């Protein structure tokens, strides 16, 4: 039987099972901690740093932290909020995010976070890197312009032999997440759809499925990301 622990988030006394991922434990207590590279049910990676909170006054990523008795967590201070905004702005500057022409616009987690924080412009110069689009795959498109390298696809999507269909290509500042031509050869429509949905941005698309939801009906048109957790 699991033991329950008591901990504090932003002054509120919370309860959850010991060792639970802090993101999940907060969620159980109706508290939203912003995430990008985290995805429920797959191992955390701690790569985007959006979920940084103060744990006993020291910064740590909530997706890689397990909750313990008497932990004192702060999810929101002016410094943390500005740090989060800076991470989002960096991602916008570092890639090519032309939201007006993006299939994922309105349903994109990166964009939704930028809306939440009311980011009108990046504080960093726009980098406009040269990036390619992999469109040779029969079912999927991999748009490197929009990939934020969160690796949710690598961690979460496996073919029916259990092999990952996304893989690292190149290194350093040129790092790319590619579709593996071998393991992705015979993927089902369902798996292709899952791959699109596990991606927080518009970097994995199923062909002929773009712009399917009209403006006004998209996930974040009227709802702030995380509000479904906060307003329970």
């Amino acid at each position, binding site marked *: 039987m699991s033991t329950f622990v008591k901990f504090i988030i932003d002054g509120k006394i919370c309860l959850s099972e010991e060792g639970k991922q802090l993101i999940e434990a907060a969620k159980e207590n109706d508290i939203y901690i912003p995430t990008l590279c985290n995805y429920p049910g797959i191992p955390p990676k701690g790569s985007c740093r959006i979920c940084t909170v103060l744990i006993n006054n020291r910064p740590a990523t909530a997706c890689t932290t397990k909750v313990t008795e008497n932990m004192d967590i702060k999810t929101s201070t002016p410094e943390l909020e500005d740090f989060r905004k800076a991470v989002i702005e960096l991602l916008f500057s570092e890639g090519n995010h032309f*939201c007006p*022409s993006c299939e994922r616009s309105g349903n994109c987690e990166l964009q939704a976070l930028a809306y939440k924080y009311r980011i009108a412009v990046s504080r960093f110069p726009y980098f406009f890197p040269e990036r390619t689009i992999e469109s040779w795959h029969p079912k999927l498109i991999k748009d490197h312009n929009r990939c934020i390298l969160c690796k949710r696809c690598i961690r979460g999507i496996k073919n029916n032999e259990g092999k990952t269909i996304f893989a690292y290509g190149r290194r350093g500042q040129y790092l790319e997440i590619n579709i593996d031509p071998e393991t992705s050869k015979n993927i089902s429509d369902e798996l292709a759809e899952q791959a699109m949905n596990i991606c927080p941005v518009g970097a994995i698309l199923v062909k002929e499925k773009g712009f399917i939801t009209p403006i006004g009906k998209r996930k974040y048109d009227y709802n702030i990301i995380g509000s479904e957790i906060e307003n329970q």
Partner: protein
Amino acid sequence: MTKKKKIIATASLAGCFGCHMSFLDIDERILNLIELVEFNKSPINDIKKFTKHCDIGIIEGGCCNDENVHVLKEFRKNCDILISLGECAIMGGLPAMRNGIPLKECLEEAYINGPTVKDVNPQKIIPFDPDIPKILNKVYPCHEIVKIDYFLPGCPPRADLIWNALYALVTGNELLIPYEVFKYD
């Protein structure tokens, strides 16, 4: 006591005029607006040159050629407050999709190799008349050329966002931006 009207100027640089169209989408509120402001240089009234110093300059579009840079610098000189209106002014927008393609390739596609030009330009001429503005190596967001004071996102920005922002700026009232009008598309 009659208050002095604020003076507004607007320009469309490397944009599609969509932001200006969205500005006109404030509908009948334009009647309230002209009670509060007067327009100087703007495509809305077709005044081509600044005739006085302005309080607010509104810029649509980024900078894709040397004429855009010139106009933008004129605006900075002649306006107290400059606003980047819309995605193109803020981050280059759709014109900046060419930024990842070498300029030579862009021009060759537009004038020599593109499907609509390849049979009608046998001498393979890329226009270079000195009267034509010179295209820049890439499209630049306005704030990378001059200081910009405010940014109103959207493609185009919602009319309510433009109205709320202008109204607050001109009257000094608090600016309220509802979540659903703050969008990038």
